[in-house]
Each structure stands twice: as C-alpha cells, then as structure tokens.
C-alpha cells in the first residue's frame, strides 16, 4: 500500500531532475557561457553567441530601410506603441478617441511617413522589413479586421436571408482554407481583379486579403458571443422601444463582446503569430532576414541564436497579451 503511494512521487522526481538538468544546460548555453561583447571570432562553441543579435540588431528590427530615413520608422513605432498602450490600459479615458485615431489616422500616417509624401524621399514597400514589418502588419490587420468582423457577425445573425446566406458563404469558405493559400491568392490572383494601370502594391494586397481572412475568424467568434447573450435581453430592449441599431449598440454588443473577449484576444495572438507567414510570399519580415543573414559564412553557425531570438521576441509579445486577457477577465468576474 505504501509503495503504491510512493511510486508517482519517484516518477515525478525523476522527471523533475531530467527537466532541471536540461534547463541548466540551456541556461548555461543561454547565459553563463554566452558571449555578449567583442568579435565573432572570440565566440566559444559551448555558449551562445549573442554578438550575432547585437551586430544585426538594426536589420533584424527594421530590415533594409535606408538608414538615413530611419527616423520615420522610429516615429511610427513610437506613436503606434503609444496607441497600443492607451488601448490596452484598463482606464477607459479617451479610449474611443485613440481607437478612432488608430483605425483611421494611423494607417494614413503610416502611408505618408513610411512610403513618403510631402517632399519626403519615397521608400517602396520592398524596403520595409524586420520585426517592425511583422508588428505593423499585425497591428493594421487587427485594427481593420475587427470592425469588418463585427459587421460580418451581425450580418450572419441577421434575419434577412440573403445577407445571412452571403456572409455565411464567405465566412465558411475563407475559414476552411489555410492562410498560405489566401496569401498566394493575394499575390497571384488578386492582380487579375485590378485595372492593369494601377495594380496595388504586393504589401497592400497581402494586407487586404489577410484582414479579410482574420475578419472571418473574428466574425465567427463574435457570433458565438452574440448567440450566448440571453434571449430576454433582446426582448427587453424591444419592449423599451429601442430601434435595431440602439438595441445592438447599447445592449447586445457590449455583453457579446465581453463574453467573447478571451477568444478575441486569442485570435489577435494568432494574427501576430501567423504574420510570419508573409516570408513565404516574399516580404522581408524577420524570418526572411534571419535566413538571409544565415547565408553569410560568418554568421552561418549561429542559427540557434537567431531562431531563439526570434522565438523570444514573439513569445514576449504573445505571452504578455495572453496575461493581459487573463487580467481583464478577472476584472469582468469581479464586476459581476
């Protein structure tokens, strides 16, 4: 009887020791034996060579954007970080203003500053790159796809048969297809649907298709929230004499969005993660830059450091977003 009780402890003890052993090996490689300063030729084999990251930091972050024009990138990233900070802050002061700003004005500002207008030097989109491009794509896609997804969800639940049929058709088809085919669609087929004189840039085509894609996923999530709102709320709103728009805006949507909040944040995390797929269609995002730097003989042996750095960057962003959603959920539970 006693031996039976001890066995799982022994088992988990062994697992723990194995985990600690591998963690120590990793920690030694990652930090203790790692090289932070000096030249590449000084790097030990046993430790990580973070000189790769330090030397290539500018390329990894901002790609091959011309270095004398980098101040534009700094401005845009600072403003969008401020926007994200204000949107995510738990105090709802000036929130609607910031949301409108980030949906309408920020994309225009990105276009004017990054691409170049008003006497600025023109920098085509194939010079944009790095982690900045990933975050830019995911930020724009999130801000554009959320309202579209909301509209699609409302359309799918509406009583007008034709609207609901059309939206379900679009949502189901796009949801059943992997993102890569959508990106291929954007690069290969979408030019057929534009006038040959002004075919949009590849970057913009990818943005369009990617935001439609994620809007469909968001629509499905929001529809789940809409359906789980109690029927009594709907009837109460009608009996108060609210019209359809007021009913949606004042009563049903706040509850539905609150119910589907964790899933929406999960979708945002997914959007950020799968923004790395643009490397397959040939944009200069962080993975493409890592690959091109690893072609160089000087940096070729440091593939581990490169990919660990990329993974760490994405992990930091995604994990902090997940923690944020848990924090907000706790607030909702207290509120009830």
């Amino acid at each position: 009887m006693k031996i039976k009780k001890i066995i799982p402890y022994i088992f988990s003890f062994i697992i723990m020791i194995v985990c600690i052993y591998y963690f120590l090996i990793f920690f030694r490689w990652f930090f203790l034996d790692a090289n932070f300063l000096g030249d590449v030729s000084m790097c030990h084999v046993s430790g990580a060579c973070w000189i790769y990251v330090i030397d290539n930091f500018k390329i990894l972050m901002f790609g091959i954007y011309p270095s004398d024009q980098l101040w534009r990138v700094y401005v845009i990233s600072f403003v969008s970080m401020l926007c994200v900070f204000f949107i995510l802050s738990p105090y709802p002061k000036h929130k609607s203003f910031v949301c409108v700003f980030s949906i309408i004005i920020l994309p225009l500002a990105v276009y004017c500053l990054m691409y170049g207008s008003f006497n600025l030097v023109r920098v085509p989109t194939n010079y944009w790159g790095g982690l900045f491009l990933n975050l830019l794509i995911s930020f724009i896609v999130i801000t554009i796809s959320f309202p579209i997804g909301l509209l699609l969800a409302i359309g799918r639940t509406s009583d007008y048969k034709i609207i609901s049929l059309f939206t379900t058709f679009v949502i189901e088809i796009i949801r059943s297809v992997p993102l890569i085919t959508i990106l291929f669609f954007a690069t290969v087929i979408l030019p057929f649907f534009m006038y040959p004189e002004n075919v949009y840039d590849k970057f913009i085509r990818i943005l369009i298709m990617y935001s439609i894609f994620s809007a469909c996923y968001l629509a499905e999530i929001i529809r789940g929230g809409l359906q789980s709102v109690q029927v009594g709320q709907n009837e109460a709103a009608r009996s108060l004499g609210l019209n359809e728009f007021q009913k949606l805006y004042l009563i049903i949507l706040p509850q539905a969005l609150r119910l589907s909040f964790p899933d929406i944040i999960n979708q945002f995390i997914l959007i950020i993660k799968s923004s790395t797929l643009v490397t397959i269609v040939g944009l200069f995002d962080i993975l493409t830059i890592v690959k091109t730097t690893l072609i160089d003989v000087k940096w070729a042996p440091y593939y581990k450091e490169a990919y660990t750095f990329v993974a760490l960057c994405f992990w930091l962003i995604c994990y902090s977003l997940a923690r944020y959603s848990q924090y907000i959920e706790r607030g909702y539970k207290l509120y009830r």
Partner: protein
Amino acid sequence: MHYGGMVAYNIPHRLGRFMFILKKRSFVNIFSIFSIAIFLTYYYSIFKINYLNNDYQIGLDFLFEKSGFFIHQSPYINFPHFSNLSVLLIGVVNTLLVSMCGVISSVLVATLITSFFISDIKINKFIVNFYVNSFRNIPLLVQILFWYEILLHIMPTVHYSHNFLGILINNRGIYIPYPLLSIWTVFLLILLVVCLFSFKIKNFLFNIFSIFIFTFLILNSKWSIPFISKFNVKNGFRIYPEFLALYLSLTLYIGAFLSVNFISGYQSIPKATIEAAKALGLSKAQQYYHVFLPVSLPKIIPPSLNQALNLIKDSSLGVAIGFPEIISLFAGTVLNQTGHSIEIILIVMLIYLIINLIFSFIINQYNKKVRVWNEN
C-alpha cells in the same frame, strides 16, 4: 426595425399587408441582391479586361500533361512522365499522412500533459504551465525552421551515422529496415488479420497462434536492411528530415493547444462527481475510465476536432522547408511550370474545403449525438 410575418397578420387588408412587407423586408433584400450583383459584375468586368489583354487560357487540360519532375519523398513510386494530376494526388496523400501522424502523436502528448496536471504533485503543474505557455506563444513557422536547422546540423553525416538496432540515423534522415513483400508474406499477413478479427482483440497477446504467425512472418520474409555505400545509404525505408521537422513541430504546437482543451474539460467536471467516485471506492484507473472520461468527453471532443482541422491547415507550412506537400508541389512547382495560377490556387482551396466540410460534418453529427445524450 422589422416585424417579420407575425405582426403583419394584424393588418386586415391584403394589399395593405403586402405593401407593408414590401416596404420593410424586401427593400433590404432587393438592395442587398443588387449591391452583391453590382460588386460581382464590376470585378468580373475588370477580370475580363485582364483576361483578354494577356493570352491566358483557363482550362483543366494542364492536369493531364507530363509533370516532368521526380518526387523523392512520395508515398508510392512515381516517374517524370506521370501527369500533373498524379503530382496533386501525391501532395494530398503527403498532407494527409503528416496530419494523421501529427494528430495521433499530439493527442498522446496532450494526454501525458493532462495526466501531469491531474496528479496531486505540484511540481508537475509547473512543467505543464511551462510547456503550454512556451509552445503556444511561439509561431509555428519559427518552430518548424528551428527544428529543421537543428536536425540538419546536429545529426552526423552519412559515414558517421548512428546505428541503432539496424536503424541508421544521419542528416539525410532515418533509415528503417522493413520486410519485402512476396506472395508468401502477403498470405501470412492475410492469415494474421483473419486471426486478429476472428478472436477477441483483448485476448490477442495470449493468442499463441497469432504470435506464432507473426514471428513466422518476421523470420521468413526477406528484409531490406539499410547499409552505407560509397556516397549514400542504400535500402531501408527512409524518413526524411523535412517530414521529421514538420511532424515534430506540429506535434508540439498542436499538443499544447490540445492539452489546454483536455485540462479545461477535466476542470469542467463538477467536484461532487469526483468525490462521489472516490466515495464509491473506485481505483484511480476506474475513476478515470468510468467517470472522468464519459463526463468530460462531450466537452473535449468538438474543440479537439477543431484543433485537428487546424493541424491539417497548418501542415501547409511544410512549404517553408520544402516538404513535398499539396501547396509546395502543386501551388509551387506545377504553378511555376505551367503558369495556370488561377485554376491551381482554386483547386488547392477546393481540396482544403472538402477536407474541412468532412470534418465539420463529423463535428455536427457528434454535437447532435451529445444533445440527445444530454436530453435523456
């Protein structure tokens, strides 16, 4: 605000009722039909201009032309003079193969992680948290590239390959010995299958006859055993590093999501049920099999099937490392050779659509069944 048919009954005149319905509902319907039609015709007109300007001809004839290239990593033998359709088929089979293996092993990983979570020992929960939070929040593409580079660099070259019970491991993949098929072995295999199904599967291990046939099969058949020749390893069943990297990363990535599903399914069991099971004096295995599983499975299976679907869609990332999979073969090589971009992308989308429809049909059937269970 629309009232539907219900309120319209109160209006006495037929004409008035008709006018009422016409006013509200059909105006919106007609308007939406018109806007969709205008949208479609506008883009069709642009498409027609582009189509007439380029000498591009839409048609499926290219499917029956020669493919002209050899695929090493295919489930069956193929030749360059096979048609493009066979290339498509190889891609589909490879996709399904990877996703089948990935689904099975990720379910195993998830059950292991869930059993860690269920146990009373607190250190195990730390391991669960670490695994789930780290692998869920790193992009799949980064993981795939990372494992691929690791497999290519850490494995030894051909002449220094590890030999493990006749299995050769090097940076060109894993070579496994396998029995060659002859009439005699096929006959024995059929006999084995008949034995397995004629007796109860529970008694399989104790069924001396089938064990006898199995050993006979292993000893009597010719084996293709891998060996190192001058430049390469010859014979043996080769598992390519691309497959291994894709399989490993899909397993770990989807396993993290699945284990979250499983854990939340376990947590949804009411505490009183667990206590009642303990009070009945059931052992841990009995509790698990008779109480936990039937209570939590209806909540676990639909999101898990969704994850399986995600795995099939995510297996398309094999393009990044050159795994010959439906997109890299058909939307990559064949598209570059023939140039029929529209048809090819649409065919690929259609295949994923069909797979998705089959899965969603299964999910719906299961949900209906669960609803019946809950009502009774």
